[in-house]
C-alpha cells in the first residue's frame, strides 16, 4: 500500500527540491558580477575595453600556454582553478563622465553575502582603489577590483579561487590592466609616533 507521502506529497516535494537545487546552483556563481549596467558609458568613453575570459577560454589558456616558457608557465599556474576573468575599463577625455550611481551599481552587488572589502590594500597608481573578496566558507570564491580616478574607471572580476598575490601576478596579462596593487605594510610603532 502506498503511503500519503508516496501518493500526494512526493511530486510537489521533488519540485521544491529542484527549485532549491537550482537556487543553490545560482548562488555558487555569485562571484560573477553583472557589469552590463556600465555599458552606457561606452558612448562617452574615448576607449572602452571589455575582456571576457570565461571558463572555456581559461581551459584553452591552460592548454596553449607552454611549460617551457617561464612567463606562460607562471600564468598557467595562477589561472589553474580560476573559472573566469572579466574586465571592463573606460577612459574618458574629460572629468566627471561617470557618476557615483554608476559605481553604486557595482558596489551594491559587492554588499551581497560573502563579499567583504579588503582594507589593507594600496595602489602605486593615483586614484581610488577598492578590492573585495568573496568567501564561500573557508575558500575564496572570487575577487573584484574597482579602480577609478577622474578620467578612468576599471572593474576587474575574477571568478574562482584567487588572492591578491595571484592578482598581482596577472596584472598586465590576459587583459588585466596594471593596477599597481600592493598589500599595505603593517603599521610599525615608529609610524604611530610620527
Amino acid at each position, binding site marked *: 500500500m502506498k503511503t500519503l507521502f508516496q*501518493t*500526494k506529497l512526493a*511530486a*510537489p516535494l*521533488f*519540485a521544491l527540491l*529542484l*527549485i532549491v537545487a*537550482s537556487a543553490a*546552483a545560482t548562488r555558487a556563481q555569485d562571484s560573477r558580477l553583472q557589469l552590463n549596467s556600465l*555599458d*552606457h558609458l*561606452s*558612448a*562617452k*568613453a*574615448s*576607449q*572602452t*575595453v*571589455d*575582456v*571576457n*575570459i*570565461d571558463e*572555456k*577560454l581559461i581551459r*584553452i*589558456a591552460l*592548454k*596553449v*600556454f*607552454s611549460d617551457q*616558457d617561464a*612567463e*606562460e608557465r607562471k*600564468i598557467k599556474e595562477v589561472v589553474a582553478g580560476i573559472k573566469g576573468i572579466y574586465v571592463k575599463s573606460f577612459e574618458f*577625455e574629460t572629468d566627471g563622465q561617470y557618476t557615483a550611481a554608476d559605481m553604486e551599481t557595482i558596489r551594491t552587488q559587492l554588499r551581497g553575502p560573502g563579499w567583504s572589502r579588503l582594507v589593507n590594500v594600496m595602489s602605486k597608481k593615483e586614484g581610488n582603489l577598492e578590492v573585495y573578496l568573496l568567501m564561500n566558507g573557508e575558500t575564496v570564491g572570487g575577487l573584484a577590483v574597482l579602480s577609478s580616478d577622474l578620467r578612468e574607471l576599471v572593474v576587474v572580476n575574477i571568478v574562482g579561487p584567487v588572492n591578491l598575490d595571484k592578482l598581482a601576478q596577472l596584472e598586465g*596579462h*590576459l*587583459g588585466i*590592466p596594471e593596477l599597481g596593487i600592493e598589500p599595505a605594510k603593517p603599521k610599525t610603532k615608529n609610524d604611530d609616533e610620527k
Partner: protein
Amino acid sequence: MSYVKLKTFAALVMVLSLTANVVPNVVSAKGDDFNSIVKMIEQFYGVKHVGIPFLAKAGMKVARTAARIKGGEARRIAEAGSIKLAVFENQDFNGEFTRFRNTLNTALNQTWSPLVQTLSATDGEQVYIFVREAGDKFNVLVVTIAQRDATVVQVTLSPKNLALLMKDPEGTGKAITEEATIIDQE
C-alpha cells in the same frame, strides 16, 4: 486543489526550473559564421563589402596585422591558407556601438567566445575578437569597424600563436585597430 491539479502544477514547476537552467540561448549564426557576420554587417549598416582586387591588398593587411600582434616583429602567425577576409571601404559606419555589439555577440555566442572587445566613441572605432576551438588548432575572428572602413578577418592559429594572443588580448585589439589605419596610409 485536487491531486491531479497539484501534480500538473508540480510538473509545470519542474519543467520551468529545468528549462531555466539547462536550455541554452537560441542564436541565429550557424554553419558559416564568417559569411553570416559579413551579411549581418551589411544589413546593420547598409553597406557592401568589396570585390577581389581589393582583397589582394587586404590579404597583405591580414598578414601584417597578425605580425604586429606581439611586439611588431615581421612574423606571420596565421596558418597558411586559413585566412578569410571581407573588406568594406569608404562607406559610413554610423556608431550604434551598443546595439551592434549586442547583435554581434548574440549571433556568435553559441560557437565563439568573445575574448576582447574595444570601442572608442571619440574615434568611432570598434574591435571585436572571438576565439573558438578547431580540432587541435583555433579559429580567431576579428571584426574591426572604423568610421569609414571595416574588415572581417578569420584566421586559424596554432596553439603557440593563440597563446601570444591570449597573453595580451587588449594589446591585440589595439594593434589590429592601429594596423588598419597604418596600412591605409601605406
